[in-house]
């Protein structure tokens, strides 16, 4: 069947500048560029272009320019290019439209409508260059009260772990991302003093040495999950849902299930790695409690157990159930959360913004008097240090960053993660592509990002007259809303600006 799809991008090659070095041919895993020896010319098939800008970045003579392409149809507000293209694609294949990364739809970003406070006259701001500023955070269950006898704490404390800044790397599984990507995250987390997250693909043996900084996941596919793996990590995370695809499972495409991935996941090479939609031993809060307790038994009560859910309509009630089921950490992943592969219709339409879910969950747990029983970590669309500060003020204990970390490593948000052809060597298992990501360089870029955010967070805290992130946690008086409806301000429990 002749495809009616018009390419997403136009690729313009300046023939005067092109020296036919074939860098673009080699760099493009999608095989857009081909060198025609006979006519000594580099030809381009635009329909294959993902817009990842790899060839543009690496072209030594700046001969290439890639731009999004308009369909050229008559302008129609109702029928955007994306809608038309999707329908053509479905008419030609009969399949669900797959996509990668977080939703690119204009869901409201409440971080941009929340503004931070600063000290003026009535209390002094603090200069972080001159005074100590504490961002250190402990993740895990906190006691209801502390009993102290002879200057010693005698209360039995639940396991907690320490991170130097309330920013952790999001779950990215081995299989979805390359081993080099995981190693970069692991090394950066270890150097900085935070954690990376194995996702559900297991922890390859090479990376077990970074276990003290690893959050290990237990998801529905139970890939790579044995008792040694559970005891290697610093925390065990039960993944119930993901912000990019709430309520559905995952199919890691067979192209990415190489021998090494097959070995770690214990599935046939080349098969799709199927993660069922629910965990089949969890059909209720009571069942969740069963798995939480099983993981605590398996790790002999030495590690906090976290439960990750997608931000959905009843997130607050669900979170309350999770905490009562015995979880030490609740993770909420919002609708802007990212993924390696998800049906686009789910990614763009299911779930709610994480800011509203966070505010609702924090409020609910405080009202029920169980907020201290669990830390709250949020994920899904944390783009900058100010998002982190606002999240902490709304009630989060820490945030996960995924897309930000990927961009630091080179990701160009082309949303083609599900193809297994990532020209930046991140979301692929093709050895020709994975070696493009050098863990020495990528981990350095990640640590740089964390250091930069650390400075910025300290400046923002200092400006508010606060010298410890603990004093900001759940302190919504430091936030003011702009351009928000009353119902939104009510849920966020934030005053409008000027109040």
């Amino acid at each position, binding site marked *: 069947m002749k495809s009616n799809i018009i390419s997403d991008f136009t690729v313009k090659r300046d023939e005067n500048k092109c020296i036919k070095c074939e860098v673009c041919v080699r760099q493009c895993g999608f095989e857009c560029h081909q060198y025609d020896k006979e006519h000594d010319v580099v030809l381009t098939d635009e329909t294959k272009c993902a817009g990842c800008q790899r060839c543009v970045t690496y072209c030594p003579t700046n001969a290439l320019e890639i731009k999004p392409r308009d369909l050229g149809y008559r302008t129609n507000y109702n029928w955007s290019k994306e809608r038309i293209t999707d329908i053509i694609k479905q008419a030609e294949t009969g399949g669900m439209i797959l996509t990668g990364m977080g939703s690119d739809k204009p869901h409201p970003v409440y971080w941009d409508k929340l503004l931070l406070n600063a000290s003026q006259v009535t209390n002094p701001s603090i200069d972080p260059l001159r005074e100590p500023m504490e961002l250190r955070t402990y993740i895990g269950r906190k006691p209801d009260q502390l009993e102290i006898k002879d200057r010693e704490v005698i209360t039995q404390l639940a396991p907690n772990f320490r991170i130097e800044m309330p920013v952790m790397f999001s779950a990215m599984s081995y299989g979805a991302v390359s081993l080099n990507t995981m190693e970069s995250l692991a090394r950066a987390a270890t150097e900085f003093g935070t954690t990376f997250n194995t996702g559900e693909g297991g922890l390859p043996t090479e990376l077990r040495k970074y276990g003290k900084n690893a959050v290990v996941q237990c998801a529905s596919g139970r890939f790579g999950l044995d*008792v040694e793996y559970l005891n290697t990590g610093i925390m065990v995370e039960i993944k119930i849902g993901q912000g990019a695809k709430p309520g559905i499972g995952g199919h890691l495409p067979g192209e990415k299930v190489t021998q090494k991935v097959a070995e770690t996941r214990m599935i046939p090479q*080349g098969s799709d790695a199927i993660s069922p939609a629910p965990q*089949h031993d969890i059909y209720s809060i009571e069942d969740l409690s069963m798995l939480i307790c099983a993981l605590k038994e398996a790790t002999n009560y030495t590690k906090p157990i976290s439960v990750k859910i997608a931000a959905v309509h009843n997130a607050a009630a669900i979170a309350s159930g999770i905490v009562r089921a015995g979880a030490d950490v609740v993770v909420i992943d919002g609708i802007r959360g990212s993924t390696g592969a998800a049906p686009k219709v789910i990614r763009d339409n299911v779930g709610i913004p994480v800011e509203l879910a966070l505010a609702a969950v924090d409020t609910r747990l405080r009202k029920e008097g169980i907020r201290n029983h669990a830390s709250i970590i949020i994920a899904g669309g944390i783009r900058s240090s100010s998002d982190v500060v606002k999240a902490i003020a709304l009630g989060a204990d820490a945030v996960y960053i995924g897309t930000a970390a990927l961009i630091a490593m080179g990701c160009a948000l082309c949303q083609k993660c599900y193809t297994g052809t990532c020209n930046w060597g991140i979301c692929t298992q093709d050895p020709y592509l994975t070696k493009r990501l050098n863990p020495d360089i990528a981990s350095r870029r990640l640590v740089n990002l964390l250091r930069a955010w650390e400075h910025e967070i300290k400046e923002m805290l200092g400006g508010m007259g606060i010298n410890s992130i603990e004093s900001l946690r759940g302190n919504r008086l430091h936030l003011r809303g702009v351009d928000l409806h009353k119902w939104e301000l009510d849920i966020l429990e934030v005053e409008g600006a000027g109040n």
Partner: protein
Amino acid sequence: MGARYTRSGRSWKLNMNTLTIDRQINTGVECVKLDAKGKHYTVLNQELRKAVANGAKNIEIYNVHGQRYIGTNLYPYDVANLHIKVFGTPGNDLGVFLNGPKIEVFGNTQDAVGNTMNAGEIVVHGNTGDILGYGMRGGEIYVKGNVGYRVAIHMKQFRDKVPAVVIGGAMQDFFGEYMAGGIVVLLALEMPEDHRHSSFVGTGMHGGKIFIRGNMESEQIGKEVGVTEPTEDEYRVINKYVSKYCAYFGNYQPEDIMKDKFIKLYPKILRPYGNIYAY
């Protein structure tokens, strides 16, 4: 042979009198005895852990009544040749994440036996509940009687690490769903013909093998699943597990079971859901 089971309502109940407990215990081997009566699972499992830490290789737990996670918390002790005998009815998640020991249950068990187990053996002299062997990565499970829903789903294997589940009685729906590896043998002993009502067998299967004694209707089986007769080699594999089953439970002779025909369920394609997406 029907005398070994008495039918009560819809479920098959084990007749405790026929158990060969006396033969199994008091063999003169030094063993640690634990009494589970009235104990919370955390207490019982700590006692078990302590016994294993002290080097016990034979442990018997009596009066078990719903205690969960037995055998789970033995990391990182040496569990080679560790044999735990459980008398009573253990609770959910018996041997979850099990990593080496052998657990023998003289009684029925509840849900999620051998959940995500990695190595070792679980032998149940009775019936079990749902989700037995979910995500199982290695080791073997033998069940004398029937099992519940969603049994042996998403089992895995890699190279020579092939988990196996052998069931004497009947299964319920979603048997062997999403299977990515491993071997399941269903002997369907004591199962009246009208009892074969389970559906969605092997739905989403993309690895491993299911062997069933007798036949199945095509509408009972997931659409991703192919049905064929086992090869000679596969009959030898079945015989290996059947022999072990008979040795454990002593209710049948392997020849009596092996004289019947088996069917093999196998995944027709590696990527059952590969064609539901548009790239």
